[in-house]
């Protein structure tokens, strides 16, 4: 696959360190002068942003958390006056108050470049017709990919949140070759294709670029097999820029982080101590080119590992393991920690493919209760009640065996659980009740 920006994506580690140091020093100088939160923080810890002499000095600065950003709502973390902001996006607010993120013209240009890298690494060229099924609103997915695809010169179909059946009609009639959406959305499209009797041979699709939520290797394989396409993962978060932070190359062996724009670290989520290469922990990112909304050591809440070994694609950027867990999605049930991915694994084993499911947590009589809502094929509801009950009992038994927990299970018909971008699989009603 072609490398979109060979100059930067193949920099030697020594050259990259030089670029990072220059940009970090400029960013620290800027946030100290422009963002009152960082100005006060640096003064409080007696940190001189002009004393930073190597990248290791970054560790002297405390982490920025989502809570800090929430307290600064809406504009207090902006490093430029509003008249210099040309665009605003916002987080979904799934785990609390939404955050407003601003972009200058240069920020948009950088984002476009980063998005072009993602698309190019997946194999998108100017000859492709790309269907973008991400919302084109406050969410960054739609416009993020849109600009990158246009920069590459691909033909863009901004189908956004069209009805799934319409998406398939568009895909078929417009001869879409590349599809970008959330993986669960792609899985939903596969289900509808089966329902409507549309076969992959009727489509021109060859590439899938999925992201915006944690997803498993099993689901990737299922979609690849079902649609006969090559699927790559990409990663990004609105606070940091949107899609384009990291992306898989053709080797599909970790996501290259665009280190000329972001400095990654891995820390222990419990202690906050830095962890070494190959150790699993929480991803922390520092933006080094953003003008409007720079972030220093931002705790992403995503669990991953970093690999510095060379990749045969030629890119020299560090790779991060695919994000399969988010700390935000972690459920603590009666003192026990668990992640949606554990449930996904159990359900996939029982049902034979990755189902759409949701975990609803509530508290009754001072005890945490979990209900697992699982979408199952419509046929099963036509069968006798006994089969449904057997499946429910099977799920309860397996969850108990693996997680030492007895959940309630509710089987629901397909498309009952809304496949909404960036919405967590967990609904926690405990604070609301």
């Amino acid at each position: 696959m072609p490398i979109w920006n060979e100059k930067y994506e193949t920099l030697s580690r020594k050259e990259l360190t030089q670029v990072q140091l220059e940009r970090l020093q400029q960013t620290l100088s800027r946030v100290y002068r422009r963002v009152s939160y960082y100005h006060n923080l640096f003064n409080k810890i007696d940190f001189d942003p002009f004393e930073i002499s190597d990248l290791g000095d970054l560790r002297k600065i405390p982490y920025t958390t989502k809570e800090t950003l929430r307290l600064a709502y809406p504009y207090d973390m902006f490093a430029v006056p509003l008249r210099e902001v040309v665009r605003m996006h916002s987080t979904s607010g799934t785990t609390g108050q939404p955050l407003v993120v601003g972009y200058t013209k240069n920020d948009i240009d950088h984002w476009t470049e980063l998005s072009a890298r993602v698309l190019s690494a997946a194999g998108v060229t100017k000859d492709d017709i790309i269907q973008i099924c991400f919302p084109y609103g406050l969410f960054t997915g739609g416009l993020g990919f849109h600009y990158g695809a246009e920069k590459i010169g691909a033909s863009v179909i901004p189908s956004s949140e069209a009805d799934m059946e319409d998406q398939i009609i568009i895909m078929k009639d417009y001869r879409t070759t590349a599809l970008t959406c959330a993986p669960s959305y792609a899985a939903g499209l596969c289900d509808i294709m089966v329902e409507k009797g549309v076969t992959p041979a009727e489509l021109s699709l060859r590439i899938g670029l999925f992201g915006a939520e944690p997803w498993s290797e099993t689901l990737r394989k299922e979609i690849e097999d079902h649609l006969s396409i090559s699927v790559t993962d990409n990663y990004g978060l609105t606070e940091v820029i949107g899609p384009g932070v990291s992306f898989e190359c053709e080797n599909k062996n970790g996501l290259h982080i665009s280190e000329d724009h972001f400095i990654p670290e891995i820390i222990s989520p419990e202690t906050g101590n830095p962890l070494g290469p190959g150790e699993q922990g929480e991803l922390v990112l520092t933006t080094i080119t953003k003008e409007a909304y720079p972030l220093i050591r931002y705790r992403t809440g995503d669990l991953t590992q970093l690999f510095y070994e060379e990749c045969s694609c030629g890119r020299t950027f560090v790779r991060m393991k695919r994000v399969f867990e988010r700390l935000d999605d972690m459920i603590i049930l009666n003192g026990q920690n668990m992640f949606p991915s554990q449930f996904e694994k159990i359900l996939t084993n029982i049902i034979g493919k990755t189902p759409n499911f949701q975990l609803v947590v509530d508290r009754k009589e001072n005890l945490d209760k979990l209900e697992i809502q699982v979408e199952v094929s419509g046929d099963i509801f036509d069968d006798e009640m006994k089969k449904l009950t057997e499946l429910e009992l099977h799920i309860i038994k397996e969850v108990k065996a693996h997680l030492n927990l007895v959940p309630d299970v509710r089987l629901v018909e397909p498309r009952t659980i809304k496949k909404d971008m960036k919405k967590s699989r967990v609904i926690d009603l405990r604070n609301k009740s």
Partner: protein
Amino acid sequence: MLKIRSLRSYYESLCILKSVSMHIEKGEIVTLIGANGSGKSTLLNSIVGLMPRVTGSILFEDKEIQKLSSNVIVKLGIALVPEGRELFSPMSVIDNLILGTYPYYRIKNRQTLNERIEWIFDLFPVLGKRKKQLAGTLSGGEQQMLSISRALMSNPKLLLLDEPSVGLAPKIVENIFQTLVELNEKTNLTVFLVEQNVNLALDICQRGYVIETGQIILSGESDELINNKEVLRAYLGKE
């Protein structure tokens, strides 16, 4: 080609440059923008070994040069065109040019020297016409051409220019900058340009840095800098 990491530069106890990091790649034209007193000339002087005390590192072709003396630095391939030209006014154009080869004085043979001078006269024909004239009697534009030519006599790989357009008519400035671009394109000469005429500098450079009170506060491709509202406001007088 040139890598500067966390450079601090002092006049006695006064710290002028505070953790400056930047780099220039071979064949690039890079510009440095900044207000008066921001540390632009200090940075150039630090590179060529004219500052009394510097910390941090300056690597030229992977060799540390921050502790080397100026004549050694010139021999390695860096030449400075200083602010205000700094010519030897009572000496002729030819003698000023020969002084540019001073670091090679002992090894330079006459033929190479003559070839070099002829090359300079091809570059700036007006200097050829005035080769025996005293430098102090040249016009401002001619003096600037001579200052650049003197630096080129040492056959540098990296040419540093400190505000070459100061006090010159726009037409002359345009000619000089055109020559710099041609040199860059034809001989792959790397250029680091400190310039108060920001429009002109951003027009010919590939990348640029912005310096403010001794710190680099911004960098990017020339397009990015032109798009930056702060640069527009502070250095280009536009809102």
